[in-house]
């Protein structure tokens, strides 16, 4: 079966532009996470969904970041008015359930803001 798919693989945006990053989780996976990974750093938690409910968005760095998962499957991370400090790899992960279920990661979207 397919793993977690993220698109686009690479995105270049000019400062001030809005971007939308897509995540297709593994079918049937209840939990979905977004992480941000800066160069040379570990992934930093952004937000968590259980089905369509966003249960934790404490890691979103500003109100320019918005995530949704309206039907409990595909998720979109939107960044408005991008800034240079938003340049990073954005990783999506899904798991069958929370708690002890391992996370399955996509290969990320590398966002470069110029």
């Amino acid at each position, binding site marked *: 079966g397919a793993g977690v798919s993220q698109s686009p693989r690479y995105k270049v945006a000019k400062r001030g532009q809005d971007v939308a990053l897509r995540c297709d989780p593994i079918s049937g996976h209840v939990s979905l996470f977004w992480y941000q990974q800066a160069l040379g750093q*570990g*992934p930093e*938690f952004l937000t968590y969904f259980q089905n369509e409910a966003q249960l*934790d968005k404490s890691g979103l760095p500003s109100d320019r970041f918005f995530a949704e998962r309206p039907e409990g499957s595909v998720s979109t991370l939107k960044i408005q008015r991008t800034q240079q400090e938003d340049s990073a790899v954005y990783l999506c992960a899904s798991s069958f359930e*929370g708690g*002890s279920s391992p996370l399955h*990661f996509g290969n*990320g979207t590398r966002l470069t803001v110029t």
Partner: protein
Amino acid sequence: LAKTTQPISMDSYEGQEVNITCSHNNIATNDYITWYQQFPSQGPRFIIQGYKTKVTNEVASLFIPADRKSSTLSLPRVSLSDTAVYYCLVGDTYSGAGSYQLTFGKGTKLSVIP
């Protein structure tokens, strides 16, 4: 949230056994310990998970002492392809504390030398 501490980097020769230790002094009762491997330009990949004592699978072993304040990932007979960053995660999204973060640290960069 249980924080983790790992060595920043380790070097090993091919064919040797490598042990990477992670400290997690404030691990909670419901927390699991999970290790991930990350290659450049890829998302992290699940290696092994445990709650207590010892767990072994086809790629690694995980040793957890009785107090669970640390854990050791053991990779038998490493090869060049094991060169990667290894992350220790501690957490449980069913904590009931309102936080669903699964927090990565900075990881351990393992370099396998021919």
